[in-house]
């Protein structure tokens, strides 16, 4: 076996019997490379599946009708495939979850990074991790059987599944994520900035709100966007808590349906292969994928910008 000098110094010192080592080295490297490449294959697999499987759907429903239609009625005749009710349902959950999680998450991150003594952090952090570890279907159960009954006295005609309960439980679900990402952003602000601010006589609150937060702003924004994109793609909690009623409404007490909940409830029911209903799963999947991709791209750009500031 012909052996070429490699970048590893081991090869130049190679003696008799080293050929086997070189072979192992090369094959291990190749196997590991193939495994790393599998992630790229997965990405292309997702894109290929979503596109190729939704082509039959877009032959049946024109993309313009799909994107601008205000009625989503996949089962009852006459069928209608306008995605807007699912999009507004999804946005209602995402924005509502943001309203719950962003202020709570940021404030608790400020507490953890700026105020908390060590012992308090050691209690709070694992608790938040525990909250983050609860399966999403369990959040759905809470929405259905805990949050909605709590809301009933405030909104007497609230539906048993409703957008408000969905948004609240998804907000609680992304709270640990917002908190830990914001904390990372706050911690990366150099100590000198804080000291300078104290030095000119600012109170702790002023140091935080006028120096630390502005300095960490792009990281905080990236945290918000990442958490919202998680809320956007969340499935089980909204399928239970928000309902399965595709309706173009901005009333949070109504039962609604998100894009993810549509995919789950249709796949769980009967969507035989070759029907428009089956194909519609992938058309909705493409729409969802584009939304999350856009948000992740935005977050990545912000993170990169933020790294350039204090690298």
């Amino acid at each position: 076996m012909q052996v070429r000098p490699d970048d590893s110094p081991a090869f130049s010192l190679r003696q008799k019997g080293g050929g086997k080592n070189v072979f192992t080295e090369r094959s291990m490297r190749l196997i590991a490379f193939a495994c790393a490449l599998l992630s790229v294959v997965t990405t292309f697999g997702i894109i290929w599946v979503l596109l190729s499987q939704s082509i039959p759907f877009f032959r049946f429903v024109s993309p313009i009708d799909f994107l601008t239609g205000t009625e989503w009625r996949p089962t009852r005749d006459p069928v209608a495939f306008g995605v807007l009710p699912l999009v507004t349902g999804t946005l209602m959950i995402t924005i509502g979850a943001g309203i719950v999680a962003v202020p709570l998450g940021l404030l608790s991150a400020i507490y953890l990074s700026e105020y908390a003594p060590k012992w308090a952090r050691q209690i709070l952090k694992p608790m938040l991790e525990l909250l983050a570890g609860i399966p999403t279907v369990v959040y759905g159960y809470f929405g259905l059987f805990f949050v909605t009954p709590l809301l009933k006295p405030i909104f007497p005609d609230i539906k048993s599944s409703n957008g408000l309960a969905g948004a609240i439980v998804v907000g609680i679900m992304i709270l640990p994520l917002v908190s830990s990402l914001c904390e990372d952003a706050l911690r990366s602000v150099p100590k000198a900035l804080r000291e300078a601010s104290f030095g000119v006589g600012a109170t702790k609150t002023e140091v935080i709100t006028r120096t630390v937060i502005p300095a960490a702003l792009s990281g905080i924004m990236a945290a918000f966007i990442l958490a919202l994109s998680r809320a956007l793609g969340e499935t089980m909690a909204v399928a239970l808590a928000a309902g399965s009623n595709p309706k173009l409404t901005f009333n949070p007490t109504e039962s609604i349906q998100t894009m993810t909940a549509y995919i789950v409830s249709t796949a769980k029911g009967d969507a035989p292969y070759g029907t428009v209903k089956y194909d519609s799963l992938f058309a909705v999947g493409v729409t969802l994928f584009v939304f999350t991709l856009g948000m992740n791209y935005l977050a990545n750009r912000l993170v990169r910008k933020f790294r350039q500031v204090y690298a």
Partner: protein
Amino acid sequence: MGESEKRHLRVRKIKDLIFRSLCLVAALCGIVILFVFLAKIVIDGFPRLSLSFITADLSGRPSRTGIWPAIVGSLYIMVLTAALSVPVGVAAAIYLEEFNTKRTKLTEFIQLNIANLSGVPSIVYGLLGLAVFSRFFGLKDSVMAGGLTMGLLVLPMVIIVTQEALRAVPRSYREGSMALGSTRWQAIRHQVLPSAVPGIMTGVILAMSRAVGETAPLIAIGAATMVKAPQGLLDEFTVLPIQVFDWSLNSKQAFHQTAASAILVLMTFLLLLNSVAIWLRARSTR
């Protein structure tokens, strides 16, 4: 200092106190919610919990149903997911951290791609599994199709945690090994990997608890609900979270209680997994 300045200072100090309390309240919010949730589950689910509930088959009657097939299904999914994602994920991480000495455009692309994949909603993986494993490879709604789909879902997570574990191994381990004449692979195999194992294990267990709690992709590939425990890889299956979902939506009120009991079983299982992870982490930092 004048009177107005003193007042101004007092206002600033009061604001300071208010802000500080707000932050504390927000931080406590998460804990309060956690305990309320746990209490709600125990109150709803504990009365129905018994040995026969754990060992009995699923039934259409809420008073007779058990959860055994879902427990077996969840175990199957967990083992299959680990069997796929751990070897592939660890190998991919080894390539990116150890073999990849000169950072090329390609490896940068792979790295970016892994970060992006971890942000793809789980339901989209379900659609991938439905089209590729269930339809194209004809695995239908089998536990094999579920395990493969879930394996792809947690793969980015396994790669990222393994990379972190490998990065934590001191450079001198590799240099020492290679200075004694080992090849790069020998250094990885005998020095780097053994010292990274606790870190990798912690991450793998966290990835497995994600796989056990995840529901959406399995429903997307068509996992059933009223089935017996799977006997082989090509049998249909159900898992604990699917059962929770199904029972929560059931029109019979009594099934809502069994849903809570199933949540208790699921959370106990996850707690056990996570305690192992915490124990491993504690052991490795000692």
